């Protein structure tokens, strides 16, 4: 009997929504959490909009020492992990800690901490030979993203395989897929898996400004993230974390656990084309989708909802639309497709996991979240993108896709676990 993977716990920290309930309210109501940047003065930047979290680490339960030794991205991950672990508490009762592992995705790790600490040791860029006497004591583990996996492992006492997966903006899908592999191959029975990123920092804005990847719609921040809209002009940078408890399906069933869904299939490919650019045909993303469907033993017609990457760049939304047509055929024109980045921005490596959370909640609630701000049809994007208003319908099987710098293309299929949905 082959081993299968169930999601039995979930924690989400997203812009405008700390906690799973708030997250679902936000995205199912089509509200947006994008605004003019408040973390620092953005006036010198081309793009001045972001989806920020009003995150108070103390209110979220972190201790002073945890706050000191963790970058914001690690803090978001630990808060989300604790929620997920609390929800799946019974999975851990009597579990062997050596059979519990951790995979955390992140694209840019401790970017905020990196920049803040660099400013101190270099005295705002004055010193090339930066001053080691001004470093914080935990700087090494603070800056290396592997510490995110350590912190999450410590949150639940995991002693099985632990690793960070960092494949740019597909990290959030790839980290969960990696955890599924470890459960299926028998290396673990429970995995704490998900992703985090907190990139809203001047250096990130500056480099995305340089390639004009982010929106310049600074006078209308609430409507700046416009996936699939003809007037879209780039993505809105976001931050966030979503962490799940994954459990081998039979084990979960045996203890009568609430199962959000089964992770039924996954596929990934590289475009081998350009570090930031995409070919319009979407061929490699299409190949990843087909591989995910094959692993799930499903046909395109079985998909009830497609959670798009939908970043809102000209290039991405065209690329992705072509990939859906190439992989799903005629069904691409019938299945609802939406992008929650329209509401919570693009949190780089985290977003794949945050979007998995959206998919699990769509399955649980039988509601497809909308694409906010989609007002002007684009002839190159001619699918059903669920504009502005959520749609009530049966949702059993969901496809979620991601596309990342470096050429990474990933696709995951989630499926209601035989009538045992939450």
């Amino acid at each position: 009997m082959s081993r299968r993977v169930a999601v039995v716990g979930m924690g989400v920290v997203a812009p405008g929504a700390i906690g799973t309930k708030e997250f679902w309210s936000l995205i199912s109501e089509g509200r947006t959490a994008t605004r003019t940047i408040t973390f620092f003065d953005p006036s010198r930047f081309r793009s001045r909009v972001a989806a920020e979290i009003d995150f108070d680490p103390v209110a979220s339960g972190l201790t002073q020492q945890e706050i000191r030794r963790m970058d914001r991205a690690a803090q978001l991950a630990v808060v989300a992990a604790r929620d997920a672990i609390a929800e799946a508490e019974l999975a851990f009762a009597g579990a062997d800690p050596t059979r519990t592992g951790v995979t955390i995705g992140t694209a840019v790790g401790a970017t905020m901490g990196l920049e803040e600490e660099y400013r101190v040791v270099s005295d705002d860029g004055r010193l090339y030979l930066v001053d080691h006497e001004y470093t914080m004591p935990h700087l090494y583990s603070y800056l290396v993203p592997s510490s995110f996996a350590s912190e999450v492992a410590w949150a639940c006492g995991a002693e099985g395989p632990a690793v960070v997966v960092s494949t740019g903006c597909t990290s959030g899908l790839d980290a969960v897929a990696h955890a599924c592999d470890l459960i299926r191959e028998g290396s673990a029975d429970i995995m704490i898996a998900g992703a985090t990123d907190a990139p809203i920092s001047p250096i990130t804005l500056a480099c995305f400004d340089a390639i004009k990847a982010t929106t310049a719609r600074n006078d209308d921040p609430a409507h700046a993230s416009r996936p699939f809209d003809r007037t879209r002009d780039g993505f809105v940078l976001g931050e966030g974390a979503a962490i799940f408890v994954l459990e081998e399906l039979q084990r979960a069933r045996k203890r009568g656990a609430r199962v959000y869904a089964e992770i039924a299939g996954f596929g990934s490919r590289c475009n081998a084309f350009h570090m930031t650019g995409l070919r319009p045909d979407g061929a490699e993303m299409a190949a990843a989708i087909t591989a995910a469907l094959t692993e799930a033993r499903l046909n395109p017609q079985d998909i009830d909802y497609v959670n798009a990457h939908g970043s809102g760049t000209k290039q991405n939304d065209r690329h992705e639309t072509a990939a859906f047509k190439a992989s799903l055929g005629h069904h691409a024109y019938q299945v609802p497709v939406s992008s929650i980045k329209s509401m919570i921005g693009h949190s780089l490596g985290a977003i794949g996991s945050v979007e998995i959370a959206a998919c699990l909640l769509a399955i649980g609630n039988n509601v497809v979240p909308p694409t906010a701000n989609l007002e002007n049809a684009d002839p190159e994007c001619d699918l059903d993108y669920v504009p502005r208003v959520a749609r009530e319908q049966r949702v059993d099987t969901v496809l979620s896709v991601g596309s990342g710098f470096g050429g990474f293309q990933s696709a995951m299929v989630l499926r209601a676990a035989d009538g045992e949905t939450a």
Partner: protein
Amino acid sequence: MISPPVVTGIGAVAPNGLGTAEYWDAICAGTSGIRPVSRFDASGYPSKLAGEVAGFVAEQHLPSRLLPQTDHMTRLALTAADLALADAGVQAGELPPLDLGVVTASSAGGFEFGQRELERNWSRGNEYVSAYQSFAWFYAVNTGQISIRHGFKGPSGVLVSDQAGGLDAIAQARRQLRRGSAMIVTGGVDGSICPWGWVAQLASGRLSASDDPTAAYLPFDARAAGHVPGEGGAILILEDAEAARERHAAHVYGQIAGYAATFDPKPGSGREPGLRRAIEGALADAGVASDDVDVVFADAAAIPALDHIEAEAIAAVFGAGGVPVTAPKTMTGRLYAGAASLDVAAALLAIRDDLVPPTVNVRPARGYPIEIVTGSPHRMPVRVAVVIARGHGGFNSVLVIRAAGTAVEATSKAIEN
């Protein structure tokens, strides 16, 4: 029966040898690449030695258009990948692109590139930041650049678990081969020898303060007081054994026979560290008994508490002094995500030549229950080698490598679906 994947190409870029033969000759001769830092003025810092890849001129190895968009460590990685593919005799277009992938390890990204762009941002202004900063420093960059340079479009990946990542990447490459890929470019090449990377590493408290290259990195020695950081690593070509046979691969260095990874208990828990379990798990995965192992390539932290944990885990599995243990990284320094795949390269070459490279400069301290190979390389039959890698923060990974052509039982870890 499942035939484990085989390594058919090696590209080493090491402080004591740019190129696989150069590196192997150096470690067998006991030649160290540890020297005073030359890439910046380290005289004002408490640690002043590093293992830098000497004589590496990027322009000689890479097209000029790649230079502005790559960190030093990515240039080394691209060079290592070129060497490995050439060694494996892979011709462009020989195999379907979707059957080929890239899985690398990273620890800290392109720190030097990042420092330069942070400096521009804060000393000159955000409009001076390079467009390449959007990817040149991040952890996925080596996989992405290798994939683009060689047109590999299959399932790929990037793993980060500090120094353990070099083995985790190879294990992930093995998973992709089991799932149907024909060939994966894998391993790690790393390095952050720049002032900003230096102070971050100094803060770990694990760098040696010695100015003497022969006394700065002394694992399992009573004088052990930290490590010397280095740059470089190795890229390996891992292939399905059948695919390698079909294309008449020029070399089959050995099989990736077993792997396991564990995480240490939370500090202060009083529970046993995870390394012994990782060694046992990797042996079980390979279907290898501890008596069958000919040599262990140690992680060799050179922090007394960590050396004790490692020596005790090795002794618990193999018996006190039960297996020769070596640490050629005493000649390169610790290369972070690059270290473990370079050790795998050394282990494969040890199998090829029946020669175990030594640990240099170390006078093994009493109290470590292991036998360390010092002095000259040991000539002895090598059929099975174990490589240990540990990452800062609690990561333990272990890989078992075996001479090619050895039949093995199907392991329980095959992906079943």
